[in-house]
């Protein structure tokens, strides 16, 4: 039975956000018998509520509260109030996500050491190594049912994958397969196997794809130690005179402000909301926001160097049929500065339905050059580029000076300028992707600009030294012992891989640490 805790109960761990980080941490703690309240800004939609329709699903699940943008990235021009495509709903962005689940490479935990000094980049090494992460990666893969691990077969390749594979073979790429996906290739964990529906981004109605919504959260609730409170938007974290956090203020479903007391607070609202909340929790003791003695809260915002390549063939492909992202080429993920940039990138299959293709193929585009592309929608194949981008201090989340949301909380501004390394990598990837499809006979290819960010990282980063970041190697804030960060904003650097497996891995590891500290009574 799901628990229900009193607002005045100051023995609970309060987690803000129920996505990859928060949902996982909540279950892990509950399994250990620790009482947890997850406050989630969004509503609770179960999997039968999901809609196989791009705009309707977006309306149902996406974070649509206003944000503003600045900087030279194209998203600021095309989608000035939608810097990120992420979720406001129980389960967070694990409802929308595609399931690609890759471990980081060893050198990516040592970005500063490996890449050396990169002008205009604020690189430091992670305070953890791959060796320390490996046992937890294994736990995360087992929990999420990642294909290609634990003897689970990989997913069968769909049409879009087959085109990718044919091109990869032509270009001589060696590592191309249907990926490591947190999608059941066989029935397991009381959930279906993938039925190749092709609406992975709209919430998997079969429950084949891992989402905290129908895995971690109900499992945690079943322990009697977890309460998930939807429609609860946290706007401030309170602290006492000693500087310890004591609880959080949130707007409830009726818009009324409530205070939930807490022994520990863990912030997991994704990389725009988490720093926004810490910054908004300023006080006379912490005039620059909580956990911000380093001044790094909100800085080093990363979104991966992304882009897509779509291609048209003279024969049909039907790329939208089947698993959206089950297909990958890993050869370019290595660090090889001879290509003109540091770090690497992955190429993964991607398809959008017609409505989103119209919105994202070339935002702002019109006329025949645009429409003749869509005319051949069923002859299209597509891939997504995801590569390491450089952390920069000036790429950051700040509180808007004038505009406030319905709870009176300043909205977030997201500033992003591409680093020259990002541009060099993206151009290299465009060339490779276009060559790949040309090799299979594409008659036309499209180097498609980045979408609003689906991967949002780095704004409360981990660091060995307190002055370089916000949290330590366990996600515990350098400044306040009982304040944790549990989402992708902890990332010290971005790596080439999709982030969620690492977010989940860090959350499992953090739960062990929190439990140990609680029993040692240090927090």
């Amino acid at each position: 039975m799901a628990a229900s805790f009193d607002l005045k109960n100051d023995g609970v761990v309060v987690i803000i956000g129920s996505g990859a980080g928060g949902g996982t941490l909540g279950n892990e703690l509950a399994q250990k018998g620790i009482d947890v309240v997850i406050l989630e800004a969004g509503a609770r939609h179960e999997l039968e509520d999901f809609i196989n329709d791009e705009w309707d699903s977006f309306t149902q699940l996406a974070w649509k509260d206003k944000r503003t943008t600045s900087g030279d990235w194209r998203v600021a021009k095309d989608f000035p109030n939608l810097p990120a495509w992420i979720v406001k709903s129980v389960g967070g962005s694990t409802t929308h996500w595609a399931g690609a689940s890759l471990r980081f490479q060893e050198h990516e935990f040592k970005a500063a050491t490996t890449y050396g000094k990169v002008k205009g980049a604020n690189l430091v090494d992670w305070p953890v190594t791959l060796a320390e992460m490996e046992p937890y990666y294994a736990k995360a893969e087992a929990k999420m049912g990642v294909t290609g691990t634990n003897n689970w077969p990989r997913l069968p390749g769909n049409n879009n994958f087959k085109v990718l594979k044919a091109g990869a073979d032509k270009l001589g790429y060696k590592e191309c397969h249907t990926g490591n996906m947190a999608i059941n290739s066989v029935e397991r964990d009381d959930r279906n196997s993938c039925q190749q529906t092709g609406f992975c981004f709209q919430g998997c109605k079969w429950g084949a794809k891992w989402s905290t919504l129908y895995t971690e959260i109900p499992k945690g609730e079943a322990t009697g130690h977890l309460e998930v409170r939807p429609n609860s938007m946290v706007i401030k974290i309170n602290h006492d005179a000693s500087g310890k956090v004591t609880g959080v203020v949130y707007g409830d479903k009726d818009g009324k402000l409530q205070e939930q007391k807490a022994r520990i607070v863990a912030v997991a609202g994704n990389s725009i909301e988490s720093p926004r909340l810490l910054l908004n929790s300023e006080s006379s003791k912490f005039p620059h926001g909580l956990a911000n003695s380093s001044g790094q809260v909100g800085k080093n915002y990363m979104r991966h160097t992304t882009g897509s390549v779509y291609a048209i063939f003279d024969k049909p492909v039907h790329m939208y049929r089947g698993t959206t992202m089950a297909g990958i080429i890993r050869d370019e993920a290595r660090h090889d500065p001879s290509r003109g940039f540091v770090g690497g990138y992955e190429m993964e299959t991607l398809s959008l339905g017609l409505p989103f293709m119209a919105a994202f193929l070339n935002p702002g585009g019109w006329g025949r050059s645009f429409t003749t592309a869509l005319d051949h929608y069923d002859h299209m194949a597509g891939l997504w580029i995801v590569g390491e981008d450089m952390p920069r201090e000036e790429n950051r989340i700040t509180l808007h000076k004038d505009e406030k949301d319905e709870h009176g909380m300043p909205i977030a501004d997201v500033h992003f300028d591409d680093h020259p390394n990002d541009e060099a990598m993206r151009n290299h990837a465009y060339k490779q992707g276009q060559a790949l499809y040309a090799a299979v006979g594409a008659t036309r290819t499209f180097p498609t600009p980045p979408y609003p960010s689906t991967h949002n990282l780095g704004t409360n980063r981990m660091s060995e030294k307190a002055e370089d970041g916000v949290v330590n190697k366990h996600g515990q804030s350098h400044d306040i012992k009982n304040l944790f960060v549990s989402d992708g904003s902890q990332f010290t650097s971005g790596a080439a891989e999709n982030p969620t497996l690492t977010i989940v891995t860090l959350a499992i590891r953090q739960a062990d640490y929190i439990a140990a500290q609680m029993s040692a009574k240090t927090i």
Partner: protein
Amino acid sequence: MVTVYEKKLVYEKKVGLSRRELLKRGGVGALLVISGSAVISPEHAWGLETSALKPETMATLIQAARDIYPHDQVPDKYYAIAVKGHDETAAKDPAHKELIEKGIAELDKKAGKGGYRGLGWEEQRVALLTDIEKTPFFQAVRGGLVVSLYNQKEVWPIFGYEGESYSKGGYIARGFNDIEWL
């Protein structure tokens, strides 16, 4: 209220014009005919009644929509449905009404005698649109179309997009890997 009449009977009754009369009014080759408060497509048996915008404005808007996102295989009806929201908004918001009416008037003026719809070649009309590409009027029309045109389920099959698939059991037995030409 904007109504899109789908049946010949409906427009003939409502608008009270015979097909012959319509064709006469429109002249040879005219795609859309204005009658009272309606835009009518005599050839394709539908009509669209406006409430706030002038029907002439609506007819031009439909043509401009096609020129912005030209798909020769998509009938006018879907462009009409895609822009009818501007009439609905105009009915509630005088500023929007002015934006559209003025924008269209401007296009007609630039086009010279015969107006925008009188220009015979798509290239001629596109040249005018390119001139005003940066204006709020153009951006409002183009931006709205991205969703209002491409999110019509009825047009998806024209592009070969199959839409919802859960109720059909996904594609696991319906061709997710049926590519044969590789």
